[in-house]
């Protein structure tokens, strides 16, 4: 790809919907989420000198997006203790998954969302949240176990 600008544009066009949906659950409304997504990418354009290229571009932009969203909520730092509350599962589309996800602790729920909804890898999630990849793996393992106890038996793997 020619420039980071182009890379960011491609990412925006390809993943805008996921960013928007995810951040809607963080900000609480679609308009704020739209604003956050645009500001996050604009900030990424402005701060592209900060992108070290030793991690994924998408992970870096997600981290910026969460920071922007948290700024909107009046919180300056992104820490594991202040992870945004996410709840993007429409109860009517999958009541079982919605209930199981709601039962997860917020940190665990966010990591599950980043993994399966935002489709980020362990390294990317670790980069976004500023935690170790091992912590991501451990948290997902715990989440799988907890989800197993909530979801229908026929869907539970032995």
């Amino acid at each position, binding site marked *: *790809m*020619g*420039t980071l600008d182009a890379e960011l544009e*491609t990412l925006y066009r390809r993943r805008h919907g996921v960013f928007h949906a995810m951040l809607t659950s963080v900000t609480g409304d679609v308009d704020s989420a739209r604003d956050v997504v645009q500001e996050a990418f604009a900030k990424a354009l*402005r701060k592209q*000198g900060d992108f070290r290229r030793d991690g994924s571009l998408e992970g870096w932009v997600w981290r910026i997006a969460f920071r922007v969203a948290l700024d909107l909520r009046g919180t300056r730092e992104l820490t594991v203790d202040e992870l945004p509350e996410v709840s993007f599962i429409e109860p009517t589309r999958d009541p079982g998954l919605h209930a199981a996800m709601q039962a997860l602790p917020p940190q665990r729920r966010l990591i599950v969302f980043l993994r399966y909804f935002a489709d980020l890898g362990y390294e990317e999630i670790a980069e976004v949240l500023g935690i170790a990849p091992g912590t991501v793996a451990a948290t997902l393992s715990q989440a*799988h176990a907890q989800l*197993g106890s909530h979801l229908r038996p026929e869907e539970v793997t032995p």
Partner: protein
Amino acid sequence: MSSYSDDNLVARFAAMAPEPMHGDWLDVQRRFQARKKRRLVAYGLAAALALLLVGCTAAFGTRVVDFFEAESSPPHVIDFLSVVQTANSYADPSFPGFDPKQTRRVIDEPFAGGTIQLDLTPLRGEGFCLTVRRSSTTTDGDSTDCATPERTKKEVLVLQETDGRTGTGGGVLGKHEGGVVSFIGWVTAPGVQRLELRYEDGRTAAVPFFRVTAPIDADFFLFDVPDANARYPHRVVELAAFDGNGTRLAKNRIVYEDPDEWTFPRYGDHGFPPAANAKAVRVLRFPGVSATIKVAPAKGGVTCFIFHLNASGSDACPRDPPTRQMFRLDENSFFPGPGSGQDHPVLLWGLVESRVRRIELVYQDGARDVTRPQEQFALYEVPVDHYLPGTRLLGATLRAADGRVVRRVSFDPTMRDLYPCENPREIGFGPPVCP
């Protein structure tokens, strides 16, 4: 306890995937361009501050400007603010708006053969917009920024860059040892009695400020950082506002990331990072292209490059496959890319595989062209007569020395706002756009 499988979760979340939705990249670029525009004007302030401080330091800190006693702003400022209001409303329908005719000039000072002016206008409801205009023999520009009620809830102390190095939030763009050299801003918290700057070395300094009365009701400051505090480890790291009891009302931190050996310098002479051998720089030139690519060998067999056209471009030291992939010639390898205005060529550039010796280009109208990479870099300028729809670039075939196809790349000839056009549309915000 049973565990829920990865595959099951992937399937169920996939069913939750959001509907494809329209996300306009131009909106992002407008935000980016708007901020750049603000930065341009702020740049002018940097030098202006020195004289301001010489002339007005004694007055700052205790000076109170009665907003209604201040002179009305001149017509050109009011006209500018009318455009600003249109642009703000375009970008944000919830913007409260203002009456440009209520704008007052609170600072008008000579500086370096030019002038600097600061105008304020109250927003409907509460809050204000600040307009800064500076002119001199070397630079002209104006900018505006608004303290809306929504923003004031989040930002009590607003610190703006005046040298283009920092973002509004105080973060430094790029990585370098140099720090903030000057800034401007305001505090909306009531009862400010002292503004204090803290440096990396722990020293502090008072920042003069002046108050503008209701309906503005805020304290404003302009500050030129001493030369001794321009670089690590003496840089500005925090500005804080205190009340009469010494209680901190607000603060704004400036975060620096110190450079490493692979970081390109961002300001001044744009050279290579320390890891590269700057004495061995070579310039790659391509037929029919005014832009060039500078390359320099670096540690570990890496080749660092700088690709620049005028003031923008790209640079990197591709040290690993992901980075090389990022700069690989593909369908988005256009420079400067969509939404870049009108006065620029359309360049195609990027890294190609080491065995590629020839790149064949084909256009919508059947026209063909050939370019050859140098040291794995491709750089090609799309001729002006291929800007119009129906004539645009359609694809590239990358071939090895024996003629075998290494890779094919398809380009989207309908990519919006990539090619300059004869009748761009002004939308009052950011650069004109093309269909």
